[in-house]
Each structure stands twice: as C-alpha cells, then as structure tokens.
C-alpha cells in the first residue's frame, strides 16, 4: 500500500509541479515589498506571490481604522492593481496555504495538495491573530467584514487587549457610536511596548472619549456585552519552517540579510526573529509596516546579489481620535523615560534612554520631534536630560 501511495504522489508531482525562481509566501506588506523590490533591483526570473487569502494584496493598517470606520472602501487600499502584477510578471497564487516545506527538493506542499517548487523561498507569512473563544479579531479584510456585519445589531462592545489594535479598535468603535469597554490584563495600556507616560495619557484620553477602560483585569464576563473583539496579539506563522528544521521558536530566526538557517530560505516581517541594530542584544520580532517593508527589501537585494545588512531605523504610527502617534527607534530595555512638553496639551513626546543614550521616541501630535529625534538615536549622543525635556528647544539644536 505504502509503495503505491508514494508512486501516486511521485506521479502527481511530476505532472503538476510548477517551479518559480522566487516563491514568496505571504501577501502582506513584506511579501509585496519582496516582489516589488526584486523587480526594482532588476531581477528577471519568475516570481510568485502565494497567500491564503483570495483578495488582491492589501494594506493592513486601515483595517482597524478607516476600513472599520467605513471611511475608505475595500478597493481603496489595495497595494496594486491586478494589471500591475501582470505587468511586473508576478504570478499571484491566491487561496493556498503552505503546510510543508522540503528544503532539499526545494518544494512546498499546500493544504490543497498542490506542490510548488522554488529556487529561493521568501517566507513572509506574518502571523495569525490569537483567538479568544468566539471573539472577533482584526487581522484580515474578512475579519473586519464579519465584525462590521455583526456591529449593525451591537450597542455595547467589549474590546479585550490594550495594545495598539485594541486601542485603535476602541477609538473607531466609539466613533461609530458604540458603548465600548476596554479590558487589559496588565495594570496599564501598551505595557509591552511603551512607557508609563504614554499609557497614562492614552488611558485618560480613551476615558474622556467615553471608553470604559478597565486595567489589571484577569477575567471578565463577556456575556454582558453584545459583541467582543480580541486584540491580544499574533502567533507567528513559522510552523512549516520550524518543522523543516529551521531555528526559531517564537518566529523564525534570520541573520542580518534575512537568511533562515535552512538553505535558500529567507524570512522577513512579523515572523522574522532577528537582531535589530537598534534593538536589544537578543533576537526580537517587530510587527510594523516599516520593518516588513525594509527587511523584505533587504532580502530582495541579497537575492539579486547586492547584499547589505538590515539596518533600517524602526518607525511606527497609530491614529486614534485626532491623535497622531509616531514612534521612532525601539524602547526595549530603556532605563529612563523623559517627558518633553505637556501631555495635558495633547502635543508632547517621550524620550527613552538606555545608559544615557536616546534609543526611542514616542511622539503625540509632534511630527517635528519625531523627525528630529531620529538623528539623536542615530548618533547615540549623550545629551543632558534638562535639555531634552526643554520643549522650547528643537531637538535638532541638541545634535553635536
């Protein structure tokens, strides 16, 4: 029996196997950037962009903002048109999920049974929203379509999770006229990625907008609400790579060029566990558009034979109500947090330092600090705290 099954599989493989010079798995920001940057760098081989969704690749940030609010339609945040991909000779392979990788044969096997070969595999599968019972999540267009439909009959909404997605969802739902309760397990908002000043400022702002913010909540009775949304992070989608022997765990380990420990397999974006030149001295994952795009571009350059280590300055943004929040740098392991300007004015920045050096800024409606703070981080200069917190003094003037 066994031999016969194998023969059938071999036959199937011989008949059906398509092979691409570069197979990109994942159609989010990193996948799209990998394909586009390969072409921009003059790569002439075949490229395929494979993803689970059947939608043309689209941007993620509007999902928890404009798309949830209904101010932008689904056609308005596609990365590119179908014509563009055809024009660039990028084959779209929608509706496929890779289940296994054979790094020796250089093939992937999809859940549908389809096998696809590659010369180079770029893994940008991102992550899957962590689930909590029947709670809605915000990760894909389908997720938000389902949420929007359910919202029509909902008056009270419980948002679980006080991270970026939870906060953006709370802001949008409040704007839609829902009675929003936000529950966070930690004693403050954004506990994993920001300092206390920003947590306090945002908690206060959400309360003033009418959100019932509950901190330090370990358990909450969700039956009291019409609808529940969970924004409790993602599980990185590295399973098939790890099963094939790649190093990693919470994500897939890559080097400074985006190479995994498996031959001819690269990874970028949310899933990539990497040492960031602006981060702590240990591998980390970064979930941001900037990181996804820049790391994928780094992989593309390495594939075309122009390798340069990944060294992009991390940045991130969020919009809630009329707040423009911008982060530059990474605040991991900071030992000092300096507030610049008055949070009560709604325009201020927070500088994070480690051993006296500025490593990150969170800026609230302060584009100027966000722009000028970048140079402070790059130069690693040590500036007196009283100068940094003097909001009258442009950060630019503090550069030596």
């Amino acid at each position, binding site marked *: 029996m066994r031999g016969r099954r194998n023969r059938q599989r071999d036959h199937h493989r011989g008949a059906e196997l398509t092979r691409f010079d570069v197979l990109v798995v994942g159609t989010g920001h990193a996948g799209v950037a990998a394909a586009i940057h390969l072409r921009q760098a003059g790569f002439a081989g075949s490229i395929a962009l494979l993803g689970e969704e059947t939608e043309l690749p689209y941007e993620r940030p509007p999902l928890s903002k404009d798309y949830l609010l209904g101010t932008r339609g689904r056609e308005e945040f596609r990365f590119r048109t179908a014509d563009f991909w055809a024009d660039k000779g990028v084959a779209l392979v929608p509706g496929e999920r890779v289940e296994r990788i054979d790094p020796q044969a250089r093939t992937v096997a999809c859940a549908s049974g389809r096998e696809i070969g590659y010369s180079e595999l770029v893994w940008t599968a991102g992550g899957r929203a962590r689930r909590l019972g029947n709670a809605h999540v915000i990760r894909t267009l389908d997720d938000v379509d389902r949420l929007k439909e359910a919202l029509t009959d909902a008056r009270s909404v419980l948002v679980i999770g006080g991270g970026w997605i939870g906060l953006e969802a709370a802001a949008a739902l409040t704007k839609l006229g829902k009675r929003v309760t936000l529950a966070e397990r930690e004693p403050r908002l954004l506990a994993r990625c920001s300092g206390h000043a920003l947590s306090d400022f945002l908690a206060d702002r959400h309360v003033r907008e009418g959100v019932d913010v509950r901190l330090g909540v370990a358990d909450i009775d969700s039956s009291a609400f019409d609808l529940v949304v969970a924004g409790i992070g993602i599980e990185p989608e590295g399973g098939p790579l790890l099963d094939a022997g790649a190093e990693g765990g919470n994500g897939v380990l890559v080097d400074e060029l985006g190479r995994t420990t498996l031959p001819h397999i690269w990874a970028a974006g949310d899933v990539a566990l990497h040492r960031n030149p602006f981060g702590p001295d240990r591998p980390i994952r970064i979930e941001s*558009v900037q990181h996804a795009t820049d790391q994928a571009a780094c992989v593309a350059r390495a594939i075309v034979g122009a390798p340069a280590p990944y060294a992009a300055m991390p940045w991130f*943004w969020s919009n809630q109500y009329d707040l423009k929040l911008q982060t530059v740098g990474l605040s991991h392991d900071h030992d000092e947090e300096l507030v610049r300007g008055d949070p009560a004015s709604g325009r201020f920045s927070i500088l994070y330092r480690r051993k006296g050096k500025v490593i990150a800024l969170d800026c609230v409606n302060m584009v100027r600090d966000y722009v000028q703070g970048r140079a402070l981080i790059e130069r690693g200069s040590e500036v007196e705290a009283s100068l940094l917190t003097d909001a009258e003094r442009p950060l630019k003037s503090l550069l030596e």
Partner: protein
Amino acid sequence: MPIINVTTRDGHSRAIEGKPGRSLMENLRAGGIEEILALCGGCCSCATCHVYVDEAWSAALPPMSEDEDDLLSTSGAREGNSRLSCQIPFGPALDGIEVTVAPED
C-alpha cells in the same frame, strides 16, 4: 478622465489616468508607479511618496501643512517644489499636472 504626467526615477515619462477624489499618491500607486512606496498609507507619517511638482502647478496646490514640511525636511533630496503626494487631493483642477518621483533617500 483627468491625466497625471509622471516622470519616474529612470527618466521615463508616463501619463496615467487620475481618479478625482483620491490623493495624488493613491493615483500614482494605482497607476503602477512602484517607486511610490507610501508606507504609511497616506496619513503623513513617512516621506515615501515624495514628488517634485512642476513649478507651473504650484499655485494650484493646497498649502503645505507643518507636518508635511517637517517630514519633507527628513529628505536629503528636498527641493523648492517638493511635496508629499499623499497630501494633495487630485481633481479636475490638476488635469495635466506634471510630477517627478523624487530620488530614494
């Protein structure tokens, strides 16, 4: 449909059809100008949709906000006619506008 004349980084010129009601950035991106990365999606948080607008059109453009000005100042390629294309709504009044994609920073 009103037209946007674009010069890409390699010096090629293309005329693309612009959809009124969308920003210049969204139109450039939809028109297949892949050099317009527009990483922040148009919320004026990055400067990756930087273009030069032909001087003849400057009077037809909305004034620059402080945020746009600050972001543009991060670019080493800033010129007097630099704009972030996400901050320019496109409409019939800009039919025929000539823009050049700014060099990569």
